[in-house]
C-alpha cells in the first residue's frame, strides 16, 4: 500500500456529474501526483476545482472511473471507511474559516487526532507528547506556542489563522496535504511567507502537496503546475454549477 514508486493520487477515466441526468462537470482521463510532489492546480472559479478536491478527498464519488489515493482505490471503501481514510491520509486547508471558533488554538490543531488514532500515534512517533508536537508545529509555523496556544482563534489575524490551519493539516503527518486557495485571504507579502513556511514543513514531513488556486503567479514555486482546463475534457469555464463561491 505504501509502495513509494506508486503515485499518491491516481485518477483514471473520471466522470462526475451532480446528477445522473445532468451533463458531467468533470471528465478526467488521467491525472496523477507522485509522492513528495508539490503540485499547483490552477483553474478559474467555476472550473470544478473544489469538485475535484471533493473527489480526491473522498467526499464525492465519481459516476465512472477510479480514484486511488495512497494505493487505496476509494471505490472499495464504504462511506464510513472513506471518512476514516480521509482523516488518516489527508490534511486539508481551506480558503478561510478553518478553525472552530469555540476551541482554543491547541485544541484546533489537535482536532484530527480526536478522530484518527493513526494520526495521533504518528504525531507522537518521535517520542513527543501531543502537546509537544502541537508546540513544535506552531513554532515551525512561526507562531509562538506559549502566546497563542490557549487563546481563542478569533483573536488571531487571518494570516495566523491560516498558519494554525496548516499546523492542523500537518499534525500526524498525513501523506497528502490538500490546500484549497489558502492564500486568497492574505496580502501578497504574507502570501509568500505563508508559502515558504508551508513548503519547508511539508518538505520535512515528506508529505505531498496539492495546492489549488486561481492565482497563477504562485505557480512558479511549485514542482509542477496543472491547469484544470487542460486535464478536464468538459470544457465549461462558465458553468458555475460545480461550485458555489
Amino acid at each position, binding site marked *: 500500500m505504501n509502495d513509494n514508486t506508486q503515485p499518491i493520487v491516481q485518477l483514471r477515466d473520471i466522470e462526475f456529474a451532480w446528477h445522473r441526468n445532468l451533463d458531467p462537470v468533470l471528465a478526467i482521463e488521467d491525472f496523477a501526483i507522485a509522492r513528495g510532489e508539490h503540485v499547483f492546480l490552477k483553474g478559474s472559479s467555476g472550473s470544478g476545482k473544489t469538485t475535484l478536491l471533493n473527489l480526491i478527498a473522498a*467526499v464525492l464519488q465519481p459516476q465512472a472511473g477510479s480514484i486511488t489515493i495512497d494505493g487505496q482505490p476509494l471505490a472499495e471503501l464504504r462511506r464510513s471507511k472513506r471518512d476514516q481514510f480521509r*482523516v488518516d491520509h489527508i490534511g*486539508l486547508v481551506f480558503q478561510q*474559516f478553518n478553525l*472552530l471558533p469555540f476551541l482554543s488554538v491547541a485544541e484546533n490543531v489537535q482536532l484530527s487526532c480526536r*478522530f*484518527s488514532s493513526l494520526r495521533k500515534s504518528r504525531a507522537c512517533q518521535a517520542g513527543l507528547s501531543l502537546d509537544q508536537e502541537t508546540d513544535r508545529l506552531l513554532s515551525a509555523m512561526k507562531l509562538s506556542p506559549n502566546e497563542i496556544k490557549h487563546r481563542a482563534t478569533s483573536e488571531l489575524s487571518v494570516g495566523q489563522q491560516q498558519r494554525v490551519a496548516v499546523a492542523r493539516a500537518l499534525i500526524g503527518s498525513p501523506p497528502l496535504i490538500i490546500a484549497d486557495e489558502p492564500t486568497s485571504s492574505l496580502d501578497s507579502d504574507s502570501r509568500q511567507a505563508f508559502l515558504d513556511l508551508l513548503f519547508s514543513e511539508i518538505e520535512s514531513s515528506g508529505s505531498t502537496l496539492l495546492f489549488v488556486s486561481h492565482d497563477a503567479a504562485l505557480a512558479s514555486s511549485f514542482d509542477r503546475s496543472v491547469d484544470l482546463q487542460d486535464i478536464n475534457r468538459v470544457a465549461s469555464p462558465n458553468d458555475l454549477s460545480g461550485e*458555489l463561491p
Partner: protein
Amino acid sequence: MIGIAWKSLCNRWPTALLAVLAIAMSVALILSVEKIRRDARNSFAQTVSGTDLIVGARSGSVQLLLYSVFRIGSPTNNISWQSVEEISERKSIDWIIPLSLGDSHAGFRVLGTTDAYFEHYRFGAKRNLVFAEGKQFDDVFDAVIGSEVAAKLDYRVGDEIVAAHGTGNVALVEHERQPFKISGILEPTGTPVDRAIHVSLQGIEAMHVDWRNGATVKGEGTTAETIRTMDLKPTAVTALLVGLKSRGTVFREQRAINTYRAEPLLAILPGVALQELWSLVSVAEMALMIVSVMVVIAGLVNLMSVLLAGLNERRREMAVLRSVGARPEHVFVLLCIESTLLTLGGIVAGLLMHYIITGLGSLYLMQRFGLSVQLSLPQSIELKILASVAVAGLLAGMIPAFQAYRKSLADGLSQKL
C-alpha cells in the same frame, strides 16, 4: 465529543441559555402543578381524620365538607340545638363536636365549639391538637387561637380580641362590647385549625346577646358580668363532627340522620365527600396538567428551533469537523449531545426553580388557602415526569441532529457560506 458539544454551546450561550430557560420554566411549571395537586389532596385528606360523619343542614355533600371542615364558602342553614341534642343521645354515637361559624376576627374565622373539639378532633395521622401555650377555654370570654393567627397578629396568651360579625376581612360591625381574652395558642397543624379562633358555643351566644336584626341594640349593652350569669344555651350550630363507637354502624347512622324527620339534615362520610370533591376538581386538574404538558412541548419546540436555526450558521463548523475526520454520524451525535445537555440543564434549572417556587409559594398558599405544601425530594411521579421530559428532549434533538447529518452529508467539505 461531549467537550466539543459543551464548548460549542458555550460559544452560543445566549441562545443556549434561552433554550435552557424555556425548558426550565416548563419543567418548573409541570412539577409545581403536580406538587400542588398532590399536596392539596394530602392537605385536605389530613384535615379530617377520625371523624366518621359530618352533619349539617341539607345541602350538597361537597359544600358541607368545604364549609364545615375547610371553612371555604358559607353554610346555607343551621342545625337546631334540639337536633344536636337528639343526635348526641343516639346509642352508637361516641362523641360529637358542634361547630358554629359566622363571625371573624381580622380575617380569621371565629369557631364556636365545645371541649370535645380539643379532645376528639384529629388531623393528619390521627394526631391530637396540642397547646403551644396556655390552655383551653373555660370562661365564656376565653378564646383559643391557631398558630397562624398568633403568628400573624402577634398575639400572646392574655391579649384581648374583639370578634366581628360576618366573615369578611374588613369587618363592618364589631362585637366590641364583648372582648375575648386569649387563653391558649395551639401548635401548628397544617390545617384550617391554624387559622381559627376557637371560642365556646356560649361565647358565640354571648357576642350576640345585644344583637337584634343585624345590629347591636342602642344603649350601654349588657356587661360581661351580666352575660356570665345568663343562660347561654345555643339555639343552633353550623355543623357537627360525629365520632361513632364502631365504624360498622356508619351507614346506618348516616341513613338515620338523613331521614331525620324534625329537620332536613345531611350526614356525609368525609372520605366519600372528598372523593366527590376530587372528581369535581379533577377536570380542572386535568386542564392544568394539559396546559403544563403543552408548555413543556413548547419548551421542547423552542429547543428544536434553536438548534435548527443554528444549523445554517454552523455549516462551516460542520465542514471543518468533517475535514478533520468527523463522520456525519459524529455530527448527528454531536447535535444529540447538545440537545441532551440543554434538556438536562433545563431539567436541573427547572427543579431548582420548582423548589424556589414551592418554597416561596407555600407561605402564600398556607396563609391564603391553608394548603400545606412542603418541600420534598422528587417522588416517583415527579421522576417519571422528569424522565419523560429528558426522553422527549432527546427525541426533539434528534430532528435537528438528523437535519445536520443530512446537511453534512450533502455539503461535504465545501463551506457553503
